[in-house]
């Protein structure tokens, strides 16, 4: 089994990006669109989710641990890259580069985001008005920009990740199949980005 360790760690990295992380991202961007229905609707929604049975266990096992694994191993992968856009300015080479850049950006963003919206809440869980909390945070244009960058990095990273996932697992082999998957991933990127950016901009109204 020793020679297969690299194989399974890589494959786990690829898989974890789609399930559960990709699934969670889509759900998370969607649930946060409740913000456009106002503070009460939003806080009610978050309260309902947080009081679901097993919410904390799911949060750790399905969200936090996969994210930590994917993020830390991803940083290692990004560290082995040596981008060469100057001499090879092809679209796919750009995607390769952007996949690594967005990975680092979104990992930094998630740590900040999780710290400011969830970990602060651990001590004073009940009384927190999450909507106002986020609202006052993104009132700062820099934090708002960081949110936009984080969301777009996440949606790009997932969409492009779907494209390479389908090669890694052997779904798309030839260039035609890979081009079709490119169109699908472009649709995923646009759709998730619209939902995500609309959600965060609702906090600015």
């Amino acid at each position, binding site marked *: 089994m020793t020679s297969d360790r690299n*194989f399974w760690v890589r494959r786990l990295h690829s898989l974890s990006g789609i399930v559960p992380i990709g699934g969670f991202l889509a759900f998370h961007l969607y649930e946060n669109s409740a913000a456009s229905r106002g503070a009460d609707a939003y806080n009610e929604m978050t309260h309902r989710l947080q009081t679901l049975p097993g919410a904390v266990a799911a949060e750790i096992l399905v969200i936090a641990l996969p994210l930590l694994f994917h993020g830390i191993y991803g940083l290692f992968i990004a560290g082995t890259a040596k981008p060469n856009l100057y001499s090879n300015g*092809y679209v796919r080479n750009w995607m390769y580069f952007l996949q690594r850049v967005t990975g680092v950006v979104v990992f930094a963003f998630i740590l900040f985001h999780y710290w400011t919206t969830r970990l602060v809440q651990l001590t004073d869980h009940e009384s927190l008005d999450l909507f106002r909390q986020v609202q006052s945070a993104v009132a700062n244009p820099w934090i708002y920009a960081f949110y936009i960058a984080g969301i777009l990095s996440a949606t790009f990273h997932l969409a492009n990740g779907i494209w390479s996932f389908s090669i890694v697992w*052997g779904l798309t082999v030839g260039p035609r199949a890979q081009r079709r998957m490119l169109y699908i991933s472009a649709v995923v990127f646009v759709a998730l980005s619209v939902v995500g950016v609309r959600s965060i901009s609702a906090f600015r109204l």
Partner: protein
Amino acid sequence: MPSSIRLSVKRQDTPTSSPYWEEYEIPYQPRQNVISVLMEIAKDPKTRAGKATSPVVYDRACLEEVCGSCAMRINGVARMACTALIDSLEQPIRLEPMAKFPVQRDLSVDRQVMFDSLKRIKGWIPIDGTYDLGPGPRMPEPERQQAYEYSKCITCGNCLDVCPQVNGRSNFIGAAPIAQARLFNSHPTGAMNAGERLEALMAEGGVDDCGNAQNCVRACPKSIPLTTAIAEMYRATTRYGIKKLFGT
């Protein structure tokens, strides 16, 4: 029509000394390639400023893009010098050794790592026995045609030179050996050892270290569908790995 051919070459005297640039200029002649210009300069080696120098060292053998030895960076792009036509290149033409292999001297590099990788993926078909094994199974014609494409690899190393995953910080073997594993695994006799080659591709530096930047397929002088080979090996290792996990 230009009146001269200008060349700028990154030279290096020993594997450990530091490189330096030298410029050359020779009278224009039509239909030259990079090798023939280097041969012309070697007749009377002097720099553009007129200073006597040594002839530029480089590798070449076949002069028809089948041996793979003359690969170098020409105007920043890894390609074969023997098929790089002067009339289609911007001047002064910049020649550099390939960046992913140790330089021996000037434009000559040591590509031993590529042969080590071929050994690693067992890029051959074991047919030797103590008795005559007889003819092997026949190969379907469509499969033979595909295999022919992969058999055209000349081990030039261009696909490694353009790959952002092939560098000092990673162990990635690059596209060429992966495509050779695909070639020998698709051969009816070679397929008998398919598992060994897949195991080699699953180890560190194997197919999963690919980053799907897909520069390799554009850089290949023989137009080998390298990214298709990589994806086929991804598919094969997926099946093999899952079978192994749930098998005995």
